[in-house]
């Protein structure tokens, strides 16, 4: 019986973790002022911007390519990276913890700072529309 509660909690967490890209974008948007709408256009501009902070990873496209519906390649190790766009990879933007982890790492590395929630909302919106 002692194990039932942790198991139930685990099951709940597992269930709660699965979201759609739309829910994840909306979750970020909800932290903004009323009237904020995630913008695929702004997200696309951000995706293509050359930040130039990291020598080998100046922009998102350094690893994810200009065509995020296609496979990418890690700019340092050369390992294949599955497509970032949900149209080509249904697992993308479905696990909020995973999404946050990668935003945290890659924003610091590529952008040189944490990304704002508005930028994250736009970024997800852009990739959701990418075909």
């Amino acid at each position, binding site marked *: 019986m002692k194990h039932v509660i942790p198991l139930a909690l685990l099951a709940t967490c597992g269930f709660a973790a699965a979201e759609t890209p739309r829910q994840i974008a909306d979750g970020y948007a909800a932290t903004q002022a009323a009237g904020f709408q995630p913008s695929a256009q702004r997200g696309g501009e951000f995706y293509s911007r050359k930040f130039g902070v990291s020598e080998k990873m100046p922009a998102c496209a350094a690893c994810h390519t200009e065509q995020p519906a296609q496979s990418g390649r*890690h700019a340092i190790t*050369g390992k294949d990276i599955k497509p970032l766009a949900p149209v080509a990879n249904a697992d993308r933007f479905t696990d909020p913890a995973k999404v946050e982890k990668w935003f945290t790492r890659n924003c610091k*590395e590529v952008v040189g700072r944490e990304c704002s929630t508005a930028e994250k909302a736009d970024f997800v919106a852009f990739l959701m529309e990418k075909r």
Partner: protein
Amino acid sequence: MQRTLALVAMGLISFPALADRMPIPADAPPAFKAECGSCHLAFPPALLSADDWRRVMGGLDKHYGDNATLDEKTRRPIEDFLIRNAGSGRRTMGAGVPPRLTFTDWFRHKHDEVPAAVWKDKQVGSAANCAACHPRAEAGSFSEREIRMPGGYRHEHD
């Protein structure tokens, strides 16, 4: 004496097998493969020493030119696992600082027949990209029979 002979024999038998088959040890925490296998192969822990792994896991914010930060509750079990299964002796010598398993004497010896053109091939990109030539690396298999080098180079047996 018998014990020594047995150890030597075991060493002789196990060495080539160990080199060909390096599956991820069964006591790996669930996060190991996801966290250490996204940007590169989830490397076999036996290829670096315990001190090397401590150094790697103690500096994840500056991880070979990338940010690989983990929260502590994920990082700690991975570090413990790597140290538990770390290698020792000749296999891990020469890794340097920061430790690179591709710099060890053992790794260099194993790859001394690989032509320079293969290392420079765009399909390879870096020596850490095991799967470029070892198609079953992810399954822990590095058998010479399986080697497929880009550019059609063939592995010549000794």
